[in-house]
């Protein structure tokens, strides 16, 4: 597996669909092997990111809830 860039997307405080929009923006510029870490406070982000992973085939490395935010770590694998 190639070692790619790690990108952090801070989408805290942005209301739905803001966080998924910010994820898509980062994903658009990313390459296979890059890792995108998204921070969000909107609860709608959790189902959205799961649906996005399922649909696009990218890899959800980790999805966890901390006291003040939701963190999703995604490895980009599905781009052609």
């Amino acid at each position: 597996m190639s070692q790619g860039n790690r990108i952090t997307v801070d989408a805290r405080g942005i209301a739905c669909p803001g966080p998924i929009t910010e994820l898509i923006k980062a994903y658009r510029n990313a390459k296979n092997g890059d890792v995108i870490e998204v921070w969000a406070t909107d609860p709608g982000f959790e189902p959205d990111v799961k649906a996005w992973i399922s649909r696009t085939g990218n890899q959800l490395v980790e999805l966890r809830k901390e006291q003040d935010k939701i963190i999703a770590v995604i490895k980009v694998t599905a781009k052609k």
Partner: protein
Amino acid sequence: MGSVKKRVIIVGGGTGGLVLANRLPKDEFEVTVVDKQPYNYFLPWLLYIAFKGSRRPIKREITTLIKPWVNFIQSGARSINLNDRYVELENGKRLGYDYLVVATGATVDYSKIPGLSKVIDLYGNYHSDEENAWKVWRTINNIKEGTLAFILSYERYRCPPSPLEGVLLADEYLREVGVRDKVKVVYATSYPRPYPAEPMNEVVEPILKERGIEVIPFFILDHIDADKGVAYSVEGEELKFNAAIVIPPHIGVNIKYNPDNVLDPDGFVLADKDTNRIKGFDDAFVIGDASALPVAKTGVTAHLQATVVAKILTGGYARNTGRTHCPFDMGYGLGTFVISDSTHGTVKYPPNRVNHLFKMAFASSYWSMLKYPELWDPLMEAYFNATAPEKLKNIYG
């Protein structure tokens, strides 16, 4: 020194620029609006050129819309120097300012998607100018069979409801002319669902299903081939079409900034979300579509931000509320509004005829609203208060 007026330069004579220009007290400020061309456009009407063939004029001369004491310079701005406080015009002349407000809007950039220029050439779009909107009208009149695809190509675009407005109006028109049973209507979006905000999606998704419109979510457009009639996603998925109407990528306009770190990669100006101050500057603001804030790019946003900046400039206290109030035409004389603000989610507001009539009435009153805030502001304030999301949520959820 006390009675010298403060010089305000407003770059851009669109909705935000003129709302602000006409609200600054003339005894305190010397206001100059700079725009590279003479007209203010009511861009929402591009939708009705494209899908109804409307011949209503959509522009008026800026000089007819500003108060007598507001100055207008018709010129492009080559660069803006935020440190030394001046705007440099195309002819090299420098205008110094005490306060600057950037209201330059957005523009479209087809080069972001390989193959897009040719698709726009063939089928048009309703997010740039009249010429391209008329091409869309021709597209929906020419298509007799196959697939008509609407594709949202980028996350930054003007007017959140506009993609689905086009889809629903096209569906209505194709039915009207009797070809809908032979033409498939498809909407491809990078979002997880047809309308980005979930409560409004609950309203519109059943309507799309009822009208037989196919939705492809999570489709991020990578490139498009006009000759083959295929759109490709970043994961290689193919969407075949006979005609494609793409909502194009939007970027900030081409003005050089000093310092240049106030721009995001798409040329939108970084700003404070509460006050619209340009990042790092007390005396410079950006309002409307030109800002990089993750808020909807709409006329209402520009208008409300302009009123906040007007208050701040006159020494008052005001903060953005993030209020949206987007008219959403759903075809067949029905419409609703997408209403939310930064502390309240979107209202699940179903369509009705009255809301559509409100959209039409607003369109007819637009230029009066720009020029006569003294007449319209109290009305609009009362209307916005009455339709605040927390109030409507009690009724509609």
